[in-house]
């Protein structure tokens, strides 16, 4: 098992370039677990992404916040299903409050999203 990891010759920013091309969050999550350098690479790749889609994923608000915080170059964010899944999740407090409050929250998010040219 003395084979060298040729891929180690790639600097983190090139690893990040590769990870940006990965479209599945599962694959991204697996990449994070490979080694520390790859964890850095995934983090950087999130920052570089222009689109981030949570469509179909059931996210909790911690993970969503963490991902969105890293993706500061975002131009497009598919928030619709995220919000829906947050509604369903037990960890999201607003679902317990009256719908009116939730609507205000939702409209606020839409406003923020439109201001920074992110599509909902």
């Amino acid at each position, binding site marked *: 098992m003395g084979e060298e*990891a040729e*891929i180690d010759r790639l600097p983190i920013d090139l690893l990040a370039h*590769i990870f940006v091309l990965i479209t599945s969050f599962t*694959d991204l999550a697996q990449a*994070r*677990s490979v080694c*520390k350098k790859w964890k850095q690479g995934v983090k950087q790749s999130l920052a570089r992404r222009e689109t981030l889609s949570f469509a179909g*994923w*059931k996210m909790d608000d911690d*993970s969503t916040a963490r991902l969105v915080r890293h993706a500061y170059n975002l131009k497009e964010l598919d928030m619709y299903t995220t919000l829906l899944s947050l509604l369903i999740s037990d960890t999201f407090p607003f679902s317990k409050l009256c719908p009116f409050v939730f609507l205000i929250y939702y409209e606020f998010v839409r406003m923020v999203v439109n201001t920074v040219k992110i599509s909902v």
Partner: protein
Amino acid sequence: MASSSTSVVVSNKEKENKNTKKVTLKSSDGESFEVDESVAMESQTIKHIIEDGCANNEIPLPNVTSGILSRVIEYCKKHKEAAGESEPSVTSYTSNSTTNPLTEWDTEFVKVDQNTLFDLILAANYLDIKGLLDLTCKTVADMMKGKTPQEIRETFHIKNDYTPEEEAEVRKENQWAFE
């Protein structure tokens, strides 16, 4: 695995009286490659060197070996030619037949060992050739599809430098990605 530098120069000589401007690229191991300037300018790095008027005799590329450089030139030539023949091949997408001919060529182009693949990534990055960089990086990304971390490590011979505690924490953070 002899170098194919001669094959690179050949097609230029076949051109008619058109005096296509040439430029010479020199690899890290001292081999010179004469190419059409327009082909060389597929590389933004080389394009800037030429435009800045710094390409007197040869452009030295100390970060690229001859083996890799000849492949890169092959890529640039192919893609330059394809760009030149801008036929309306859009219609071919609607017919069930085939893929864009360049896609097939590209797929064959990246069927190389890992060492060469990473050399190509590094060269494409250094020479700033977006198409080649995206192609090679996508190839690596595809090698990771659907694999567990251990399988990825085995594919690329990567050493796991997480402690068991760190690994458990990363797995916990990843929970959201799995149903």
